[in-house]
């Protein structure tokens, strides 16, 4: 009994013990706060890594060498996917590699001349997309019209359309800069611009990433020559194809890579450009409840589509239907890695708090030498003395980590108003909302992480207290008892 009683008494009799407790408190609170913000940031960057990826990506292997007989057009596959209740929307895309050059330079010339680097062709990603159907496109206008007379039209949910296409969202958003040229009508992005050359046969329109547009000094209505290579079915060779397109406008995805090197055009036009070598390369699927259905939906799609012969069977089969996480598995792994690394580094804060306890208890053992001798004379065992000092660390950990957990969790939940208040108080902006892509400080409190931190605080306190406690139990009581 005396162990808990005396340790509790010593805890408050000596002010220095409170330092150990406050150390634990600060460490636990800081750990929870920082880890919550880290988790928030990483979660936000997870979104960034996901970028414009759909929930599930289906890429059938259409190569003849694989011996697969999958259909050339996406319609059967789209129909099969859309017939699943868990699928919200699906659309097809055709992605191909292309080359572009500076304005006015003929691609064949440049490839032949091996001239200065300024004329180097640039590799771009050509993305052929299905633009929304006419109803989908006119619906927002109708909604707006009804709203002006005070009515409300519900949002349109047509399963046939892929309404999460971020491109559309990007195009209908605000204009992105003075030098850039948003398309004339975002609802019909590939409509030819009014300032287009009249001569020759009508050219298809493309949307160019805004950075690419800027670097190449383009203007809306310009002719852009795009080259690509497709295998010749007869000769088996890969000759260069050229075609001219009209720049209809720019888009901004916020992702450097896409804005620097992606060109959107109509899927039919791209397929035509490729000589119908491919009609589509992937089908993008949006799930109604991705968090819940991802695994089962992916597995079912793999099986059903393989049974229907829409994707190839065999060893490559699983790779043809992938969730976005499987698609970006390396980047996600890196983020997770970062989180773990961060947690390990931050745990050093706890070690510091543990060391404070170590120092204070060591001091206390020296100071309480006489008390230890008295206790031994009164019938305490060395083991009991050891436990008594461990108890002090236990109280430190208990009170410190409880208060720290409360403070840290509260701080993490209210980080935004807290930061604003602190910024106002000190007159310095702590979190620059311009630098980050977020207008608030992202913060996610994970109960498991809080529990682990508290557990870690206990482990740390007790581990560091073990040394002075052991020393106390080894003290010679007589040296302390003999004199006052």
């Amino acid at each position: 009994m005396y162990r808990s009683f005396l340790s509790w008494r010593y805890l408050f009799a000596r002010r220095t013990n409170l330092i150990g407790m406050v150390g634990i408190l600060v460490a636990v609170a800081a750990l929870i706060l920082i880890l919550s913000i880290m988790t928030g940031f990483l979660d936000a960057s997870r979104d960034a890594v996901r970028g414009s990826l759909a929930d599930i990506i289906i890429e059938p292997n259409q190569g003849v060498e694989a011996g697969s007989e999958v259909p050339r057009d996406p319609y059967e596959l789209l129909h099969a996917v859309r017939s699943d209740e868990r699928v919200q929307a699906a659309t097809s895309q055709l992605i191909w590699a292309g080359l572009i050059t500076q304005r006015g330079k003929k691609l064949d010339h440049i490839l032949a001349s091996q001239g200065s680097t300024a004329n180097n062709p640039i590799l771009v990603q050509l993305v052929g997309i299905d633009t929304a159907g006419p109803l989908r496109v006119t619906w927002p206008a109708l909604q707006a019209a009804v709203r002006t007379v005070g009515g409300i039209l519900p949002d349109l949910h047509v399963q046939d359309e892929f309404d999460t296409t971020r491109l559309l969202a990007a195009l209908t958003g605000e204009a992105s800069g003075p030098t850039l040229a948003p398309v004339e009508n975002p609802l019909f992005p590939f409509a030819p611009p009014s300032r287009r050359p009249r001569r020759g046969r009508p050219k298809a329109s493309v949307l160019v990433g805004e950075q690419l547009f800027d670097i190449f000094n383009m203007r809306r209505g310009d002719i852009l020559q795009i080259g690509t290579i497709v295998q010749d079915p007869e000769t088996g060779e890969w000759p260069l194809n050229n075609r001219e397109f009209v720049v209809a406008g720019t888009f901004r995805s916020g992702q450097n890579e896409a804005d620097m090197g992606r060109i959107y055009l109509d899927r039919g036009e791209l397929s035509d450009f490729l000589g119908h070598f491919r009609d589509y390369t992937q089908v993008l699927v949006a799930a109604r409840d991705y968090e819940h259905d991802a695994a089962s939906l992916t597995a079912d799609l793999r099986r059903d589509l393989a049974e229907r012969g829409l994707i190839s069977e065999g060893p490559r089969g699983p790779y043809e239907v992938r969730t976005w996480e499987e698609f970006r598995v390396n980047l996600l792994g890196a983020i997770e890695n970062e989180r773990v690394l961060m947690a390990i580094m931050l745990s050093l804060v706890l070690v510091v708090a543990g060391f404070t306890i170590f120092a204070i208890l060591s001091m206390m053992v020296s100071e309480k030498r006489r008390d230890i001798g008295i206790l031994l004379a009164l019938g305490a065992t060395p083991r009991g003395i050891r436990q008594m000092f461990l108890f002090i660390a236990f109280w430190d950990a208990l009170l410190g980590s409880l208060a720290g957990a409360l403070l840290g969790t509260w701080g993490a939940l209210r980080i935004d108003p807290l930061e604003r208040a602190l910024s106002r108080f000190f007159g310095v902006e702590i979190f620059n909302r311009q630098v980050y892509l977020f207008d608030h400080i992202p913060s996610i409190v994970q109960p498991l992480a809080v529990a682990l931190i508290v557990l870690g605080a206990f482990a740390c306190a007790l581990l560091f207290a073990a040394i002075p406690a052991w020393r106390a139990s080894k003290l010679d009581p007589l040296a302390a008892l003999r004199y006052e």
Partner: protein
Amino acid sequence: MNTDPTRRDSPAPVVLRAHGIRRAFALGKARSLEILHGIDIALHRGERVALMGASGAGKSTLLHILGLLDRPDEGEIEIDGRDPWACSVAERASIRNQRLGFVFQFYHLLPELTAIENVLLPSMIARGAVDWRRSRGELRARAEHALAEFGLADRMRHKPPQLSGGERQRVAIARALFTDPELLLADEPTGNLDKATGETVLELLLAEQEKRGLSMLLVTHDSRLAAHCERVLTIEDGVIQADSAHPIPL
């Protein structure tokens, strides 16, 4: 004449017996100084024994050895027919807790505890949390009663620094007696008190010893204190030179 001091010649049973106790302390690396050169003692139930000797004669060293706080280099100790140094650490601690009571010259109270908490400390040490909670009320009442009897009724909630020397020693005596020990080991209990206070404390100590019929070893270098004891041992040059119960023939 019987010259064996450990031989039982009174009907009272032996509470503690020590035989051939030697104890040396290291002085530096190679040298050591032997303080006790073979001590034989038997303490009987209800006996009041004074241990006299000059300062530095080894009185405290012997008392610590008899109190199981220090282990002799040589010799045996027997308490209740058992060798405590052959017992486990816990058993030895329990003997100290249950059978022995200590009173020190410098009181040795825990400064963070109140007077009553100091008195209750041996009982806290003896009990687990559950046991303590069950008997707390009764023990508290007993401690309060004991302190009141010692004239400390209005000092129970005071901490040692707020008490006078005489009051502190009275608390220490109440603590030593609280577990009803068989043997009280008192190391110059009045050595740090003025004459008048020392006398009242001594009277209290002797009265309690008498009343409870316990054995007491009173270490002192003051022959007037020793005069209150029925048996006086004198330690000199590391051995018991004289035992009033067994006068050594010249």
